[in-house]
């Protein structure tokens, strides 16, 4: 083999390896680092062309011949992404004056609450997707999903609240750390937020609403739907990855899981990295958006000042209350029903029967983790937009009824 051939071979090998590392980077990146990927491509093509023209393969700092494949440290940005990227405005809302009689009488008088919610207004007669996050999460959990929905349904609005004890919703409680997180209270909160948003935004009436709830939020939206207080404005409700049977089973191991989480982080970057590395959230863009909403700097521990805003372990007394009767309510309430799961084995018996009797729509995304809408915002958005399309009463045209045709004297 001549020298020239050998050199050429080496050059080819090198460019092949370059392609390889490029692929690896591509897989790791989830497509959020396009500009930096381009650099890698440029490097390779330039080195390959220099090899073919001059035949010299001398490592130079610019060519990075012996550099390790581009990995997490350099390639992945873990900077947080502000909510303003996704939502039009944030709202600070007060519940209606305490004339109401339906909330728990013990809690109402002494509690002062200001709901915090993110809103992108619906345009014209567009629908409003009302999002309720799961325990320990926040309204920003739906940020990426909301922009994906609007890409496909530009006149849709999205309202994502922070539940009490979560995100930026503030609550003064007579006894600190004893927030009432019962299901009924949470679904009343959700109803209050929708009504208060309507008042503040001066909507003449409620837009057509699709309720979307993840995990605990799924139980909350189902509860609100089964109460029927939204009336005909409610088109349907979608529940993301929560099923009564499997949730109750998982509760036993919840404390173990919670104790395995880090109690605090040195920085938001660390927190985002933990969420991505532990595959709690499998999409870096989502993690960069939602994780900052979960933590606050309490300054207590100088090495790890960023701690969870919500003490999940302390919410244990409410866990069973959240999920008991969920399957029954889900099947029984009025409106379109959709269940999105990360695996079919999460269905309990009641919902397995319900599904095979055709009582609701089921979508399964096996490649997602528990945070389906953060892991796969695009697919979730497609499912939700389709769900709305099917339940959109303004667009629905069904074939005429036979009795109507007969009444009109037509032969059928």
């Amino acid at each position: 083999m001549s020298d020239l051939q050998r050199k050429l071979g080496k050059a080819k090998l090198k460019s092949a390896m370059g392609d390889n590392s490029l692929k690896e980077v591509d897989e790791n990146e989830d497509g959020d680092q396009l500009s930096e990927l381009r650099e890698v491509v440029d490097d390779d093509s330039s080195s390959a062309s220099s090899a073919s023209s001059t035949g010299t393969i001398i490592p130079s700092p610019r060519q990075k011949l012996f550099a390790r494949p581009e990995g997490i440290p350099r390639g992945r940005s873990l900077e947080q992404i502000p909510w303003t990227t996704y939502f039009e405005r944030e709202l600070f809302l007060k519940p209606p004056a305490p004339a109401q009689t339906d909330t728990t009488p013990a809690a109402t008088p002494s509690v002062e609450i200001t709901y915090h919610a993110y809103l992108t207004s619906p345009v014209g007669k567009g629908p409003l997707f009302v999002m309720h996050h799961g325990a320990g999460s926040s309204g920003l959990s739906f940020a990426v999903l909301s922009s994906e929905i609007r890409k496909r349904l530009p006149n849709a609005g999205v309202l994502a609240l922070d539940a009490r004890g979560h995100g930026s919703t503030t609550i003064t409680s007579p006894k600190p750390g004893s927030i009432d997180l019962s299901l009924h209270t949470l679904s009343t909160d959700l109803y209050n937020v929708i009504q208060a948003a309507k008042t503040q935004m001066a909507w003449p009436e409620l837009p057509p609403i699709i309720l979307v709830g993840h995990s605990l939020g799924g139980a909350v939206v189902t509860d609100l739907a089964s109460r029927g207080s939204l009336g005909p404005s409610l088109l349907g409700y979608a529940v993301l990855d929560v099923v009564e049977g499997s949730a109750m089973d998982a509760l036993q191991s919840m404390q173990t899981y919670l104790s395995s989480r880090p109690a605090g982080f040195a920085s938001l970057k660390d927190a985002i990295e933990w969420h991505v590395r532990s595959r709690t959230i499998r999409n870096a863009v989502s993690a960069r958006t939602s994780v900052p909403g979960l933590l606050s700097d309490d300054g207590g521990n100088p090495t790890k000042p960023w701690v969870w805003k919500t003490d999940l372990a302390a919410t244990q007394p409410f866990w069973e209350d959240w999920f008991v009767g969920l399957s029954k309510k889900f099947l029984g309430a009025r409106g379109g029903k959709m269940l999105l799961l990360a695996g079919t084995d999460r269905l309990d018996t009641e919902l397995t029967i319900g599904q095979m009797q055709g009582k609701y729509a089921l979508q399964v995304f096996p490649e997602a983790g528990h945070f389906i809408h953060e892991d796969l915002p695009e697919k979730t958005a497609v499912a939700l937009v389709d769900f709305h399309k099917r339940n959109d009463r303004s667009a629905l045209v069904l074939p005429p009824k036979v009795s109507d045709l007969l009444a009109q004297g037509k032969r059928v």
Partner: protein
Amino acid sequence: MSDLDKWVAQLRACRPIPEADVRELCHKARELLIEEGNVVTVNAPVTICGDIHGQFHDLMELFRVGGDVPDTNYLFMGDFVDRGFYSLESFLLLLCLKVRYPDRMTLIRGNHESRQITTVYGFYDECLRKYGSANVWRYCCDVFDYLALGAIVLGASNTLSPASESSAAQEYADMNLEVEVCNADGVSTFQFPRQSRSLTSSSDPQPRGSPNGSSSTAGHSSPATGNKTGPPGSGASGSSGGSVGNPAGAVLCVHGGLSPLIQTVDAIRLLDRKQEVPHEGAMCDLLWSDPDDIDGWGLSPRGAGFLFGADIVKEFNYKNDLSLIARAHQLVMEGFKEMFDASIVTVWSAPNYCYRCGNVAALLELSEDESGLGVFARSNGDVSRSDGGQEKGRPNGFDTLEGPARRYRVFQAAPQDSRGMPAKKPVADYFL
């Protein structure tokens, strides 16, 4: 022993056949299925079965209860795969039997016979697990595209033949039964004599209590009603059974139900079926729709297909000279469910669905019309009705045909120890 018989024997033992053999089998099956129309014509006697869902041992139980192939003719209404742990063995066995006995096995397509659905609900993973590659799944999916969309059963009798050899045929003929429910051992548990439509308050024979219970006390008396019905041909029977021709009408079998885009059986014949199940349109509706207690058409909560009411079914049956639509697709805890004055029936053949739903399963037997006339007076496409085409009284808008005599055999899941069930996956660790 031919290859086919070897494969059948191996699959009956619940052992998958090698990948190359699957390929050959699927190839043969496709050649056979491509010759079939979208709506296959089947002659009674035939045993109609609903969803199987990969519950291989329960399929074996079904064959035990219903009679083995080729002694019994079978019509399976789709959903062979997914959810159960033996989708592969179940589907391949049925396909083998189809290729081996083409005239005695009819397979039509269900909504789970689709690439998109099988990747989510288990069949794809099962193939990958058992063969290490997706090739077998691909071969099977190619077969799915060729499965017929429906079947028409002609020549069903409106009297029942005996449920087992021990009963005298004459006794059955005398009783003029319309519906009989048997348990897995062939013992009759409920019998419903034919009666005038106007008198029937219980024309949907839903047995109370466990349909599979050994309530042999019901015996040969009629538990449904004490009303005497007249002899065949008299007005009191509401049936012209025994007169010229076979008045039982044709039975349409389809996995899901009707479509607003389909007004006639011939319209189904015109579809281009050789494709993946689409997300909407007539083909999708046939595989996805459900009957419901509504007026006209409604939105299906499933996210595909429609809901349709009694008026739609009766109009369709009237227009197409059908006496009954048999369909599957919906889990029925009692195994079968007749709706809308017995104009449509749901048959479900996966007992204890997903190994936990606690339901029983059923199969529907239609016996052969043995009047010897061989005239299908009201079969599909035959416009001359037995009344000479005169206008009939239409109390409900349409005068529905008397259905053929129907025997439902109800059975339970195969005993637990006969299957080695894969370990259950651990529960999700985070669920708040």
